[in-house]
């Protein structure tokens, strides 16, 4: 069976000679929640830039359901939904206007678009606030709106880059729960990039990224000896806790 996401010897070097990713190989199967765990600067955002076809790998390949992102970006992008680290909503438009814009970018017509917008916003308790401008929303609601938006075209793979940064503990937990539910209910695969260990559950596929290289991978349970936090700190050779 073809993995939904397959990174093969993925490497990326910036013009300023900084090698951001080195020989990164891993797979994500359908319906799987994969945590990409790494400290700031580990290469998570560079990986996202490649996955979203904003950058091309210097070496290696990234396949999305068999489509090479560098060769056939359109087919690959149609299968993915993104939530980037930085808010990408238009602050001066309402939630509804932002979601309609996104639906049109994916060629989703009015009728189907409105139906899906309602479904996704209701699921995240945002439908009643759909006419509010994004600027008036707090960080948690903005994130929820972005997740709703990323799911409008029913992607097979949802990629979230530090989606919980800046949110309080309760909101983070709600988001993590929601995304885990997506895996179980819809069979959506998820790549959740984070530097926060408490967002990883013991059955989650976990990849520890450090200095652009995979320092360890397996389920969180397998990696957690004696604790995931200890393993993470050992592998990334950082003496500081990442639990916040």
């Amino acid at each position, binding site marked *: 069976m073809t993995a939904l996401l397959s990174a093969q010897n993925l490497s990326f070097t*910036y*013009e300023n000679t900084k090698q951001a990713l080195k020989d990164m190989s891993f797979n994500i199967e359908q319906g799987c929640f994969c945590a990409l765990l790494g400290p700031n600067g580990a290469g998570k955002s560079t990986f996202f*830039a490649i996955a979203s076809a904003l*950058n091309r790998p210097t070496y290696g390949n990234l396949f999305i359901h068999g489509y090479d992102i560098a060769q056939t970006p*359109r087919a690959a992008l149609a299968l993915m939904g993104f939530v980037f680290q930085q808010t*990408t909503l238009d602050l001066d*438009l309402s939630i509804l206007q932002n979601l309609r814009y996104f639906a049109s*970018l*994916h*060629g989703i017509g009015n009728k189907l678009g409105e139906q899906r917008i309602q479904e996704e916003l209701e699921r995240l308790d945002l439908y009643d606030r759909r006419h509010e401008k994004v600027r008036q929303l707090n960080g948690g609601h903005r994130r929820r709106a972005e997740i709703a938006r990323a799911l409008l075209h029913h992607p097979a793979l949802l990629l979230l880059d530090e989606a919980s940064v800046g949110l309080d503990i309760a909101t983070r937990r709600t988001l993590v729960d929601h995304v885990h539910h997506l895996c179980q209910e819809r069979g959506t695969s998820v790549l959740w990039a984070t530097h926060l260990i408490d967002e990883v559950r013991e059955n989650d596929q976990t990849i520890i990224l450090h200095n652009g290289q995979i320092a360890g991978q397996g389920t969180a349970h397998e990696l957690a000896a004696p604790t995931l936090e200890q393993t993470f700190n050992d592998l990334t050779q950082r003496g500081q806790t990442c639990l916040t």
Partner: protein
Amino acid sequence: MPYLICLKGVIIRELLRFLQQRERFFSALVRPLMWLFVFAAGFRAALGVSIIAPYETYITYEVYILPGLVGMIQLFNGMQSSLSMVYDREMGSMHVLLTSPMPRWFLLFGKLLAGAFVSIIQVYVFLIIAFGFGIELPPSGYLLVLPVLIVSSLMLGALGMVLSSRVKQLENFAGIMNFVIFPMFFLSSALYPIWKISESSIFLAQLCRFNPFTYAVELIRFSFYAQFNAQALWICLLSCLAFLSIALWGYDPAHIHKRGPK
């Protein structure tokens, strides 16, 4: 069909953003109106305009600069669109556009068309105000200028897109505005005929002839009077194609990544 849906979405978003930013609409109109009613009033006595094509008689200075001010609206709008693209890139919302499964050339072209649509609305509002103050065009001119406005706004929008693909940070954009907008506007036939400039400096007149904005202004001027300026049309179309190609090259991931992270 998905292409049309996408194009409609991009245009609606651009329109919504424009309507939300009322001060942008206001300043887009005030700028040329100031030139038309203040600058032109001061200069009409100092600057005699002889009979030149497409005019068949002596005209007032206000009538002469009207096409130039229409070009000015489009030039500023093109730069404003590119400024908002740099802003979108810095803020991250450009990611939403570029991660669409539609072809990138189509997305960028859609963005250009949306900008052209917004600029044409501004031009017509400006022409209506000018009409209200007695600066009139032949009735057919209002209609015939429409296809020309599409070409000129696409060309100027594409130029803005080239700049947006090269400018890394918003702060650098002010310099670009000064080094692009003002030279383009002043070194053109927008405010004075080129023969008038050549009386003072042949070199400056030559610079005006190498400026694609001059041809955008002339194309607009001729269409106002139901005349066709083939040279201006070709130069505008070729410039548009050249700018668009450079912009597409600039937005290609193979070239973006070389510049590295911000």
